[in-house]
């Protein structure tokens, strides 16, 4: 926060926006929790028709999971670069993160279309519905993340460059991005592996 007006506060030691953002992330847990719960409840039940195990492709999804995981690394490197005020590197890592995210998204789109063609459609059965809504909701998060990353990269191209102190800054987008990644860590296990 800029100290333009030095209005005295009782400090908690956490920057206001960061605090707000973490609270937002805490509630995101509930969003995904509800989705995962629904998924698990139906996973244990009988349902007619085609199952995920009939259509999925573990090697493919493993690779895209790996891609998303690595994007967390590039993200944290971007953050680190900005902490040392290396604008050049920051932009590179940002772009890399966005690209990795885009690759993951592309993979998901490919996967969805594959599934569709194999007859595993949104309303095929209760399992396919929960699968698409759960992973789709995550995909939407990734998509928003990519847009934000690109926007940030665009802002970084401007003269003043990026800073950790103002604007909808890199730190929050990084937090968001990591969060999306950890959700996928859980989903990959719960949806595909178990």
């Amino acid at each position, binding site marked *: 926060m800029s100290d333009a*007006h030095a209005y005295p506060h009782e400090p908690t030691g956490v920057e206001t926006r960061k605090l707000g953002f973490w609270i937002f992330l805490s509630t995101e847990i509930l969003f995904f929790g509800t989705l995962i719960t629904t998924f698990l409840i139906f996973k244990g039940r009988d349902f007619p028709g085609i199952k995920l195990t009939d259509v999925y492709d573990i090697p493919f999804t493993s690779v895209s999971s790996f891609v998303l995981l690595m994007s967390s690394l590039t993200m944290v490197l971007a953050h680190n670069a900005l902490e040392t005020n290396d604008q050049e590197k920051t932009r590179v890592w940002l772009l890399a993160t966005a690209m990795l995210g885009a690759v993951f998204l592309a993979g998901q789109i490919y996967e969805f279309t594959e599934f569709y063609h194999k007859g595993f459609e949104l309303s095929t059965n209760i399992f396919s519905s929960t699968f698409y809504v759960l992973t789709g909701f995550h995909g939407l998060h990734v998509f928003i993340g990519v847009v934000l990353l690109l926007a940030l990269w665009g802002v970084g191209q401007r003269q003043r460059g990026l800073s950790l102190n103002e604007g909808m800054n890199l730190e929050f987008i990084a937090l968001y991005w990591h969060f999306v990644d950890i959700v996928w860590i859980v989903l990959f296990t719960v949806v595909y592996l178990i």
Partner: protein
Amino acid sequence: MTKIIEPKKQRNIFSRPSSETGIWSWITTVDHKRIGIMYGYAAFFFLLVGGLEALLLRIQLSQPDNNFLSAAEYNAMFTMHGTTMIFLAIMPISAAFFNYLLPLQIGARDVAFPRLNALSFWIFIAGGLFLYSTFLFGTAGAPEGGYLDEEVSRLASAPNGGWFGYQPNAGLKYSPGTAMDYWAIGLQILGIASLVSAFNFITTILNMRTKGMRLMRMPVFTWMTFAVSFLLAFSLPIIAIALFFVTFDRQFGTTFFLTEGGGDPVLWQHLFWLFGHPEVYILILPAFGIVSEVLPTFSRKPLFGYPAIVFAGFGIAFIGFGVWAHHMFASAISPVAQAGFGLSTMIIAVPTGVKIFNWLGTIWGGKLTLNTPMLFALGFIGMFVIGGLSGVTHSVVPADTQQTDTYYIVAHFHYVLFGGALFGIFSGLYFWFPKVWGRMYNETMGKIHFWLMLIGFNVTFGPMHWLGLQGQVRRTWVYAEETNLGFWNLIVTIGAFILAVAILVFMANWIYSRRKGEKAPFDPWDARTIEWSIPSPTPVWNFSKAPEIKSLDDFWHQKYGEDEDGRAVRREGTDELLLKLEEEGLNPDEEIHLPSPSYFPLILAFGLPFLGYAIIYKSVPLALVGVILLLIGGFGWGTEPLEEEFETSEENPDAKESSTYE
């Protein structure tokens, strides 16, 4: 009159709104006080609409086998009545109080994220309008294969699945048409509004407190805001996802809650009440906060057991997450679950009781001024206890299987919602009236309002206990003559009209006093908390100088000490202190930077209903409009600096002067 520094002109897609009076200044405002006021008026408007719907319900039920409304109309009316009262009246009125008072009570200049605050207000408006547009565009009808004798009127073209939209009845097969889509998406939008404000209030309370305002020195109202914000933040995501499922079921052929495709209708009940029960505490805790301010002020005693009240509030909020299945005692849940949830529900009575007894402890031995806010606060205790005790009779599971879905339940929740939440809200409206408007309300009319309301309320909802035990099932459009329920139903209807008169008296008082009321001094009640240490009406900048807090009820302790008996004695120099405070409050000696108004919250908010329509009508152009509005709003917002940058006065010597708003 004071100096306010003009913000540096920004180059942006839009030039920044700059008017300080007139309609645009309100629409683009990010001032928490104006947002609070707008919240209040909008919510009160919806309260009237919801009340009007209730009156229609009551006319229909005034005699057996009545034909005033058709079945379709009746069902739409109770659904809209419940939905309106809860999501569009009580919740936003509470938000009005939060917005207006929270920064004042913690000595802040604004909330943590002023524009986010404006956003949540406009999303609320957008959601409310969207939901109500169902009366213009929505459609409803008989279930697939069923027959209707007459066409569905406009009045009946509204959501009709009940306020908790139990599946599968609220699914497409049994509720065809678009009305229930309006409901699901409307609630979704309203949920976003509350979620956003919850983040805002939590961070505000944690980080914007003035010097010395330690947590355990915060006013109870602020504490309750804090608790409510947590309830919102952790319960709304659940309903958001559940509503997603409903929308998918209705629009895209999935079967999350429909047995045909392997879905589970009972899951909807769980998800809804996982949200729904915390929701009822979201409705009541603000009122708890309000009376905790009013009672000590007019008893001229500190709040009895302040820490107990605070912890009890959080206890209620916490346990409130663990009782949801008490709405499903008659549903398909196991005896073990019934027992568990029955017990957890009973436990809630303990922290609530702690609050009640501490309030009684507060007035005990006090010096009570029985003016309107105090009367409402006392009425609140009396009426809420009745509702709470009937709540405990519900928690006795076997007894609840007799009571559930009858008017006994309707009686319970009106006693807690109306006798509790709304009485508390009225108390607060009168209490802070002078602070907001700088004028006094009319005491005589206030008292008339109170007595009419107390009587009307009991005449309306008291007999409902009896009706329910005598077997009147809720949500019934007609009841048979032979059930012998006609007499008390008529009484109830009469009571509802007494309530309507009471509300008219309130409105008359408000309108009259707003214009012609006596000028209010800045501390008319000899009050305790720091929002009374600044002028009335509150100046735009709230506090000229950040106050430094030394104790709980800081303002009171500035004015009063205690003698050796522990009685309050006015300190010497209090009068001068007050004069000084008022003088200071009106004329800040430093330059004050206030966040500038913005269009973007408004633009962003109104993108959402377009997306809603786009889903209902599967229309790409509408979706595009929505997305474009979101993008403009989001992008504009993102590029407009989050924290305003100000030019210092040297760079901007001809800084314009401005005054407080009306």
